């Protein structure tokens, strides 16, 4: 599903994002990527959504080599990878329903289809009863669930979370992890970038540990080791 072969990302002569990274992630896997701040975790996410391009090496997703992906194809790639961030990135002046619908609108989906899909996806994340609330009327956990719903509307094969629980308390963190597990059970590959020890240890799934841009550990059923 996701393959990185000898990927290096050099931002400048004294700033290295990733160094000679080799990773292969199978479809349906739930992989946690752990590492200290500045270790290269976010660089990995940016490379996967083509926000950055590797200096050397090759990246492919679902057999599609995206190393030199043309600018015009990036939107197609991003519709196949759902991304959730620590800072939610919700539109404050749009309701829950509108925030999720927005992702379909930009993809040119017809209005009728948007009306049909959005409530269903919000039901999956448990927000079917808060369609007309605004982000500021929701808790942090609920806001993150809206973001997950927005990431899911395109039915992505991969869901990437960049510190999605970073701003949440323990209870909300648990809720989000449960939702991610549920999504994974439906077959979506999950790549969870985090430095939350409890979350990683509780998942008992594959863990990739990055340090100074290099993979220092890749365990099938790993633990947080930093």
């Amino acid at each position, binding site marked *: 599903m996701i393959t990185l072969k000898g990927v290096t990302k050099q931002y400048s002569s004294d700033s290295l994002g990733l160094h000679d990274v080799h990773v292969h992630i199978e479809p349906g896997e739930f992989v946690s990527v752990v590492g200290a701040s500045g270790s290269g975790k976010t660089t990995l996410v940016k490379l996967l959504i083509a926000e950055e391009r590797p200096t050397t090496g090759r990246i492919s997703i679902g057999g599609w080599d995206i190393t030199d992906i043309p600018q015009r194809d990036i939107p197609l790639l991003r519709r196949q990878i759902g991304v959730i961030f620590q800072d939610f990135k*919700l539109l404050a002046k749009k309701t829950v329903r509108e925030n999720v619908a927005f992702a379909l609108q930009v993809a040119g989906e017809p209005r009728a289809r948007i009306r049909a899909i959005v409530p269903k996806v919000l039901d999956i994340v448990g927000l079917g009863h808060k369609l007309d609330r605004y982000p500021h009327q929701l808790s942090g956990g609920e806001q993150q669930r809206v973001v997950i719903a927005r990431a899911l509307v395109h039915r992505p094969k991969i869901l990437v979370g960049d510190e999605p629980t970073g701003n949440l308390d323990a209870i909300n963190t648990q809720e989000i992890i449960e939702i991610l597990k549920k999504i994974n059970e439906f077959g979506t590959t999950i790549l969870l970038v985090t430095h939350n020890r409890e979350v990683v240890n509780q998942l008992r799934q594959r863990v990739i540990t990055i340090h100074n841009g290099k993979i220092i550990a890749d365990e099938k059923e790993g633990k947080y080791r930093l």
Partner: protein
Amino acid sequence: MFISFGRSITSAFQDIGRNLSLSVMTILILILMLLSVNTLLLIRFLTNQATRSITDQIDVSIYFTPTATDEQIAEVKKYISAFPEVTEVIRYSRAEVLAQFQTQYEGNPAITASLQELGDNPLGPTMVVKTRSAKDYQKIITALAVPEYEKIVVAKTFTDTAKAIDRIHIITTQVERFSVVLTALFAIIAFLIIFNTIRVAIYTQRTEISIKKLVGATNWFIRGPYFIESLIFTIISVSLTALLVFFAARFLDPYVAVVFGQSAILTNHVISNIVWLIGIQFGAVLLLTIFSSALAMRRHLRV
């Protein structure tokens, strides 16, 4: 495709609404720029009209002695008509000249009394010659300066309007130069304001833009609304300017009619050239707005 286009249009109107004061300012500056262009065009039109009107009034008058015979006058007419520059030769008999003279001085008892005292018609026949252009008149005057005609021609005159035409051209050239400078100034201001309007729009929507990129919006979906915004600015400013010019022409027509003796001269000119006027101005303003928007996006919008 059509759905995305429709959403881009909606988004463009939302942007205009969010930055209403800047949008209004942009449209106002574009209107000022277009008004100065239209002033320039109308001045040029009026100058041409004035020159043509003055030229139309010029003619050479040849005054014959009262003793000049019809044959002699016919010969002069034949000679003058042979010049390719001559467009019209009108001959007035002695009686016609007297009648014109009497009509002209109808209210002058001294002249009427003098004519009655003379008894006989003291005026000779007259010939009025019109040529293609004002500069040809001197040629006709020179051509008549031959001994055989000197005996029967009392006087040859033509009103020297060349100086008046030159003066009109000097004044209008100055006004045109001022209008060109003013137009260029407004174009620069419009460029800067549009650039800033788009820059502010990009800045205020940076979160929305980053989310659009994140969820897979195409370049067109992100950039399209700003181009459509430029198109909306163009349509509104050109339409409002066309209306303003039309009403200004109607307002000025009575004043222009005093000079040219024709009614609705400006309005008719605007109406008969409306497609050309709007088309050219629409194209020019669209180029200006698209160029400044594109530059603002290139500098401030990373897609």
